[in-house]
């Protein structure tokens, strides 16, 4: 029987999965797919605070993510160390601090997500934010592709690369914040990386590639929730397993021309 909880779960996983897949196609072009992992880990202190004080995990995740990104940016300016090294420092510190305070019974929720406590309000807020993020990414998509091919070339065509990069990073933060609820902090790289890779294998032009990422992400979300209901496995894990199955299918049926 289809209950309200099931509808909410499908709505949230399909919309967040789709926007994450769509954004993931840009992240793949900038070779940033793996960044989703460390960014997900940076959210752990925020998730811990949310679980301890009873507010929404996405709000906690988003707040600490913004703080973490600003910290990386600040250290980069101060030290000139590579971004990846600073990201490693910030995300491992975040994990360490979070585990000092994270109650043992909440560890699983923090790491692999939980959709059992969805409300109508949080679902519709998440869907609205997903749509907003999708529209923002669609607006900057071509410019980001231009900059991914050559930043100088994009600048020479009067594209404000710094501005669109900032918009892009903020959108990444929002999407990771949304994804946390479904797949937890441990597996966020999967929701942006796998659908994009699937789409790249199956598509032959930019438009199909971008929307293919959204379809693969959304479909994995819906199939994951169905598996969660049928086999009582955690929803986040089911979403990622179905995303991986779609990827394996794309490897078999990939189009090279």
């Amino acid at each position, binding site marked *: 029987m289809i209950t309200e909880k099931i509808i909410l779960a499908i709505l949230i996983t399909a919309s967040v999965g789709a926007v994450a897949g769509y954004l993931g*196609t840009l992240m*793949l*072009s900038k*070779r940033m797919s793996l960044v989703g992992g460390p960014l997900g880990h940076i959210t752990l202190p925020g998730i811990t605070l949310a679980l301890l004080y009873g507010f929404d995990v996405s709000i906690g995740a988003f707040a600490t993510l913004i703080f973490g990104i600003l910290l990386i940016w600040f250290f980069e300016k101060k030290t000139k160390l590579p971004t990846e090294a600073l990201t490693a420092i910030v995300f491992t510190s975040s994990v360490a601090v979070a585990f000092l305070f994270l109650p043992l019974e909440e560890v699983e929720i923090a790491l692999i997500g939980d959709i059992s406590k969805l409300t109508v309000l949080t679902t519709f807020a998440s869907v609205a934010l997903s749509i907003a993020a999708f529209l923002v990414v669609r607006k900057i998509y*071509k410019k980001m*592709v*231009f900059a*991914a*091919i*050559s*930043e*100088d*070339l994009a*600048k*020479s*065509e009067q594209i404000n690369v710094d501005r669109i990069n900032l918009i892009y990073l903020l959108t990444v933060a929002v999407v990771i914040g949304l994804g946390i609820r479904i797949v937890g902090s441990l597996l966020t790289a999967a929701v942006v990386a796998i659908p994009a890779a699937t789409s*790249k294998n199956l*598509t*032959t*032009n*930019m*438009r*199909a*590639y971008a929307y293919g990422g959204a379809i693969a992400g959304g479909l994995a979300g819906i199939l994951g929730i169905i598996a969660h209901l049928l086999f009582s496995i955690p929803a986040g894990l089911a979403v990622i397993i179905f995303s991986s199955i779609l990827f394996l299918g794309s490897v078999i049926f990939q189009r090279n*021309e």
Partner: protein
Amino acid sequence: MKAKINMEKDKIALRVKNLTVELNGQVIIKDLSFEVKKGETLVVLGPNGAGKTTLLRALLGVIPYKGSITWNVKNTSYLPPNELLQRREILPLTVEDFYSLKDVSGETVIESLRSVGLDGNLLKKRIAYLSTGQFQRLNIAWALVDKPDTLLFDEPTSGIDIGGTETIYSLLHTFWEKYNMTIILVTHDLSVVWEHADNVLCLNKSGLCYGVPQKILTTENLEQLYGTGVKYYHHHRNK
């Protein structure tokens, strides 16, 4: 504004005065001055690390610099072909998608492709699957599609064979003749200088030599630029 009026009178497309570029605390270009006339082809020569690409980036205004760079042109097109060649596989971009980045589509794209001898049927083909020669032709067509009066080209033939190199420079020369464009061309290739350059700028941090090839490309200057043992046996250009 005053400088611009003088430049129009003088038919100067670009005037660079006392240009110094410093990146990460290292001086890349020091106190460089030169001019480019409208319709002129300037070839920038120099060894690796001399600052040729940095000069183009400064001219485009994408990196900070000291000194003055004054343009008197309407529309500039820049092309870093080597960078494009290396990154063309990052996305499944078709030729049509590549043009759409410049908001160009339809008949204009077909005309643009034909202008460099490429078939309109390539429109749906992924740029990653074009041969290197086809891709370099596409680059030229793409750079020229919005009809620039000035073209900045960074190593247009790196990674392609001698036949392909000839084709690229012949194409550039054809467009130069047809549209009277101003071209600033960075290359390692000394033969290009005699074939296509009106002026040469030898770069080794500061401008080592600048002027017409016949006067500038002496064995002494080339040795100073590239180190000992460089000789160039030139032939004359039929312009």
